[in-house]
């Protein structure tokens, strides 16, 4: 039984836009002669030092995402209550476009992701290059509702669209001596202002790099995502393709990938290089191993509603995916190899 104190200003379920109208909204708008669809952009409430001076004007942004056809997946958890799309689009850590959570939605608005190339090389029998269309056409797209847990102790439930990383790697036929998979984000300071300015870019080194052990990469949960909520990715979510490793902290899920290299040595990872005592290579979600400065025992879930419905929930081992991935770490001291 749900005992809930509803604030007077809260909308009722019956006030919500009917789903049929929602799905046809672009047609409706077109028929009304309005073709520029604005992506929601939050205004920022802040008593910060410079906020009065940074003219963060928020013009309507053209939404150039397209619909994707997907198959359901056994790895999708449909019981999860989803984080609203508007929050997924406006609450992002993507320092290439600024360090405020609302920066990427604004600064990446016109980031072009077509054409794009992903190179798969290193210890592979068949070095492969994929173009923009390839990532949508050469793989069967699935919808996977996953939990996402940020190291900052907030979390979301996201309906990703993509295909297993294993399928991508199989196209390049990794050699048996390949032990790790290294990933790299685009490096283009002209298009990614955070890479041109140290202040804007949060003090991390670019290009953003990440890595997985080969068995982690081949785990069926590891996903290359090309979309969410039924559409291709918005730039701020790591378009056109990104990694999603749901049992690890979010910073492992590298965005806007241009290169995947199979290697036999543990590859460097950006956050580990910045603060090795705070961010490890494995970065498995683990409520028993705290961040040196804050607890990882619980998280603030970002879901429907506003302030008074935000809820703190306990963090679960491997973000709730222990069944699928705990075996990868048998015998390891996860306190030392964090």
């Amino acid at each position: 039984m749900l005992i809930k104190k509803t604030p007077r200003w809260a909308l009722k379920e019956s006030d919500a836009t009917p789903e049929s109208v929602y799905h046809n909204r672009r047609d409706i708008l077109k028929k009304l002669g309005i073709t520029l669809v604005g992506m929601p952009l939050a205004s920022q409430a802040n008593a910060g030092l410079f906020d009065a001076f940074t003219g963060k004007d928020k013009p309507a942004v053209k939404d150039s995402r397209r619909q994707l056809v997907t198959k359901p997946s056994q790895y999708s958890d449909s019981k999860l209550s989803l984080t609203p799309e508007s929050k997924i689009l406006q609450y992002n850590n993507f320092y290439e476009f600024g360090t405020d959570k609302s920066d990427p939605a604004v600064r990446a608005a016109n980031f072009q992701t077509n054409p794009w190339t992903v190179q798969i090389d290193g210890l592979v029998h068949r070095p492969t290059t994929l173009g923009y269309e390839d990532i949508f056409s050469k793989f069967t797209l699935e919808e996977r509702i996953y939990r996402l847990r940020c190291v900052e102790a907030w979390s979301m439930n996201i309906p990703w669209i993509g295909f297993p990383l294993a399928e991508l790697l199989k196209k390049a036929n990794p050699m048996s001596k390949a032990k790790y998979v290294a990933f790299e984000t685009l490096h283009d300071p002209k298009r990614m202002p955070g890479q041109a300015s140290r202040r804007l870019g949060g003090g991390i080194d670019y290009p953003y790099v990440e890595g997985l052990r080969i068995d982690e990469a081949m785990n069926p949960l590891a996903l290359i995502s090309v979309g969410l909520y039924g559409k291709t990715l918005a730039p701020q979510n790591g378009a056109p393709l990104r990694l999603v490793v749901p049992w690890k902290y979010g910073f492992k899920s590298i965005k806007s990938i241009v290169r995947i290299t199979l290697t036999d040595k543990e590859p460097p990872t950006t956050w580990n290089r910045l603060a090795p005592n705070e961010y490890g290579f494995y970065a498995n979600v683990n409520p028993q191993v705290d961040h040196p400065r804050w607890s990882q025992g619980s998280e603030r879930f970002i879901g429907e509603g506003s302030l008074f419905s935000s809820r703190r929930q306990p963090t679960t081992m491997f973000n709730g995916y222990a069944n699928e991935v705990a075996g990868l770490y048998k015998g390891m001291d996860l306190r030392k190899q964090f």
Partner: protein
Amino acid sequence: MKIMPRHITGLKAVIHLISLSFLALMTYQTLTGGLGADPVEGLSHFTGKAALNTLMITLLISPIARRFKLGQLVKVRRLVGLYSFFWAAIHLLVYLALDLGFDASLLASEIATRPYLTVGALSWVILLVLAITSTQGIQRRLGHRWQKLHNWVYLALLLAPIHYYWSVKSGITEPVLYLATALILLSFRHKILRRWLPVLSSFSRTPSTRS
């Protein structure tokens, strides 16, 4: 220009107006979702920075009064200082209520184990004590000891930006700017500080006369 009592009253009214406007803005943004997708973090940052800003302004008043020979200006210092504690109190309440769900023992253990919370709690307690002892009545009763007590604001001035610095993942620009501002504000009082530090060290050197 000579400052008349009515100027001080007017200035106090303006300070109230500005502070309450920020409170209204915060309330408005809370109710309309303008705090972003993680409103608890948004509210925490809003109130924390409001507290830092007002604390910095509080410590700007005496140097300005001295420099421009506007002694009466000091009369608004208590008001601004109290607003700093006001924002700090909401900041802590947000954390305790919305983040920790009023779990007092969790609050205690978190403050004990997370350095950024320890220094934050220390600054908060300093501001609390200063707020409580801010009345003219107490000022009269404590005499010269009152000033010694209220000099602890300099420690809060340093600890609060450190609290901010340690709480962020990597975006240290703002915390560093607050720290730099704090150091500049302290530098205006270098004469006093040099006198204060020997007093502090003399406390530690004073032997107990009852052994």
